[in-house]
């Protein structure tokens, strides 16, 4: 990891020399500016969350005043930091976290095992299976949601954690992603391990999984976001506070007669933080190049 892992076209023309540090600073600054431009729409969200009058927020929308606050206040955040009573956001937050963790952990295991078998297994007809998996990704959630509601209520799963986890653990997208990642790894890996007499599961667990940190991180993050932002499904299958996730509670700020812009904005900012932490925690796994060293060895 001594040099750039990859050199992109931009700095090619500049000759090598002691200007390298300077170049890197300029380069970093440029990337920062691009990043700031990309996330500039989100400033509006953050600024609005610091205004405590929802009519003010509404009146400011549609002009650059949406990007400026003269008297910032944290009152919106204080208001939603409510852990008991009718709208116990603290409880919803915990519910969402439980659902996220269970979904992601079980999803990682189940989807990666399936992807592994599709990539390296000896099962007949796995090409067909793979095609089916891709085809399943085509089905939009909206077209199966009502039959699913009926199935789940018949199974007596309404208003549980299970009903919010089970349907989304196995996912064609992530099976496909794992398959794609595993299939990319050199076949010598598998052959060597098999020669040593390792079983399929052992090869998967001891050789392929440790090599798959980038894929595992990717899937964790994507599944995490998906689970965190699920909204229509939990609305349909939860009844009480017992298992209600935070996304549903926050959607109530977008009410019938009035939108609680102040708290909706603050809640939206807060909603992003856990996923951001998840991302920052996992993205470190992208950095080290396990694959390279493994192949060498």
């Amino acid at each position, binding site marked *: 990891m001594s040099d750039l892992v990859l050199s992109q076209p931009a700095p090619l023309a500049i000759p090598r020399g002691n200007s390298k540090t300077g170049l890197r600073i300029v380069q970093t600054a440029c990337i920062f500016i691009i990043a700031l431009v990309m996330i500039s729409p989100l400033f509006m969200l953050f600024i609005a969350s610091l205004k405590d009058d929802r009519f003010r927020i509404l009146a400011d929308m549609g002009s650059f005043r949406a990007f400026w606050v003269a008297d910032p206040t944290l009152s919106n955040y204080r208001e939603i930091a409510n852990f008991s009573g009718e709208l116990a956001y603290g409880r919803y937050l915990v519910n969402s976290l439980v659902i996220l963790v269970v979904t992601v952990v079980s999803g990682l295991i189940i989807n990666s095992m399936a992807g592994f078998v599709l990539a390296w297994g000896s099962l007949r007809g796995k090409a067909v299976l793979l095609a089916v998996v891709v085809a399943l990704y085509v089905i939009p959630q909206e077209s199966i949601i009502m039959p699913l509601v009926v199935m789940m209520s018949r199974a007596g799963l309404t208003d549980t954690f299970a009903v919010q986890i089970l349907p989304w653990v196995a996912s064609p*997208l992530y099976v496909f992603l794992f398959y794609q990642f595993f299939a990319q790894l050199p076949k010598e890996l598998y052959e060597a391990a098999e020669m040593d007499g390792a079983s399929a599961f052992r090869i998967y667990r001891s050789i392929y999984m440790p090599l798959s940190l980038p894929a595992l991180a990717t899937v964790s993050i994507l599944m995490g976001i998906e689970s965190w932002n699920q909204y229509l499904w939990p609305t349909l299958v939860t009844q009480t506070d017992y298992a209600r996730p935070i996304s549903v509670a926050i959607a109530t700020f977008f009410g019938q007669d009035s939108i609680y812009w102040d708290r909706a904005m603050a809640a939206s900012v807060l909603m992003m933080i856990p996923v951001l932490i998840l991302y920052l925690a996992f993205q470190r796994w992208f950095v080290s190049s396990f694959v390279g060293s493994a192949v060498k060895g």
Partner: protein
Amino acid sequence: MTLQQTSAAALPRPARRRDRQRFWQEVAMIAPAVLLLAIFLITPFLLSFWTAMTNQPLVPRPTPVRFVGLLNFQRVFTDPLFWTSLWNVTRFTAWVLPVQCGLAFLTALLLHQKLPMQNLLRGMFFLPAITSMVVVCVIWGTLFQYPSGPLNQIVGFLSGGMVQPIDWLGDPNWAMFSIVLLSAWQAYGFQMIIYLAGLQGIPEELYDAARIDGASALRRFWHVTMPGLRPTHVFVLVITTIQAFKLYTQVAILTQGGPKESTETVVHYMVRAGFEEQKLGYASAVSVILFVIVLLIALLQRKLLRRFDV
């Protein structure tokens, strides 16, 4: 889907007993996913094949549910709005693919190098992807405001007042383009991290070898990075295409298919029929048709990609 060069057949065949053991192990490993998918995805979807051939309403009604054969399909195919919606998602896909994947690829390249404050930068670029779509729509609805929203002010400023304010979401000629901008912005982070993982998968040794051979950075990019990312490109292309054809949430929140049907999408058309007008049979027919169409496109894509060996 196309990426695998080695098949199991090429592997040496061990003894029979081990074969059988291996078979059951593999079955056990793939079973949880297959089972869950069968229950939660395939079963409800297969039910909709049957529903599509009935006049079933969303919720039970006093009138009996009848088998109506292919009537729903016939009606879907003769509704000009269905064809409009199909054309719209095709347009959307054609626009969003290069914009979103290009953005994702470029940002991934930028971030896949040693940088000071790397974590912060990566976090920043990923922020839009973790923002929920409802919030994204609120923000962009403001940016898009006509005539004096921020985006119009920027356009006006950059063009020195030459360009008149654009009714981004209200002008049938612009609405879909605006949805493309917003969608690409919201979702590029998704493809970005897939590219980042893909870049990570390219062995460092290949770069070292290329450097020793004296290959320039540009040559390394074309001859090491691009071939190394081939499977990732294919994956991202297939996935993004399918996602694009399922376009719904943004449209439902911001334009509801309008203005003048210019942003009507197949899934939105289906939801309107099924949830608002309560014609579940009809909506099921639409979802079956969408399924077949997107599947054909995915297969076609795969064929084409194979042919050009991308």
